[in-house]
């Protein structure tokens, strides 16, 4: 019999589709941005992993990259941007400052963006190399693939 159909789980297909079409919103505030730019451009080429389309509007993005230091003054802005993104959405904290405040343990700097928004993957380093950013992206893809997907019929079924 000619096999022109496949059987799979809806969760699996949704995860597969979502992990390879991440639209990213880069929230770049500091020097880690240079490493992110290197990762995004041709030499390291983040597009190989399906995350090549950068959107400069949070409403069109589903991956928030927080790249660099976030101050207390900036915290409401970051929160607003996260809230504007549509579900499903993921967050990567790139660099020591975004992860924990880094070297800035003082009155002005938020001690890690997980104080403001939930974070999926943390990348340490000051700054992290582009390979580390790609590695984090692959880790996030694995997470997306294996997590229960949010979809409309799931709510209808009440599961």
């Amino acid at each position, binding site marked *: 019999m000619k096999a022109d159909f496949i059987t799979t789980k809806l969760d699996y297909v949704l995860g597969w589709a979502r992990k390879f079409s991440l639209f990213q919103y880069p929230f770049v505030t500091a020097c880690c941005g240079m490493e992110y730019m290197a990762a995004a451009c041709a030499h390291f080429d983040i597009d190989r992993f399906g995350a090549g389309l950068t959107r400069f509007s949070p409403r069109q993005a589903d991956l928030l990259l927080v790249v660099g230091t976030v101050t*207390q003054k900036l915290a*409401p802005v970051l929160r607003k941007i996260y809230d504007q993104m549509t579900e499903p959405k993921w967050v990567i904290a790139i660099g020591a400052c975004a992860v924990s405040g880094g070297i800035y343990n003082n*009155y*002005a700097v*938020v*001690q890690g963006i997980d*104080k*403001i928004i939930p974070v999926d993957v943390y990348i340490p380093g000051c700054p992290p190399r582009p390979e580390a950013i790609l590695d984090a992206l692959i880790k996030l893809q694995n997470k997306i693939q294996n997590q229960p997907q949010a979809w409309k019929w799931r709510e209808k079924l009440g599961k």
Partner: protein
Amino acid sequence: MERETRKMKESKTIKILKEKFPKDILKFSAPFGDETLLIKKDSLIKIMKFLKENPELGYSLLLDITCVDYLGEKPRFELIYHIYSFRLNHRLRIKTRIDEKNPITESVISLWKNANWLEREVYDMFGIKFKNHPDLRRILMYDEFEGYPLRKDYPLRKRQPRLPGLE
């Protein structure tokens, strides 16, 4: 500070100033060759105006205003002005001490317009108020911030998160 004072000739500016304001100048030093004058707080505007408007001197550029908190000393704060004369190609540092109980001094905006933001920064970080400043608000920190973070008695670990429920 005196340990590095070189045995150099006093510049023209210092000679003129010492002649003109003998009672207002408390101390002269030249650490690393940078001539520094400690003056009385009340004669700040008088001396600054003279430095800027005297045709021989012409200190037309205000480079920076900053402050140091010498906690425990009296008076506690030291306000520092860096000014520059194109005519003489000379840099001058003017210092004045400010008391903790009444941290207020005259603004120099009437002489140099860029003092506006510099004085706002000193106000933001040290809480020193400037008389006759047109717009004395915080410049770096947000308006809800309490206290002055660069004062030595501001707690190192104190956090004032702007979003409620943080930290």
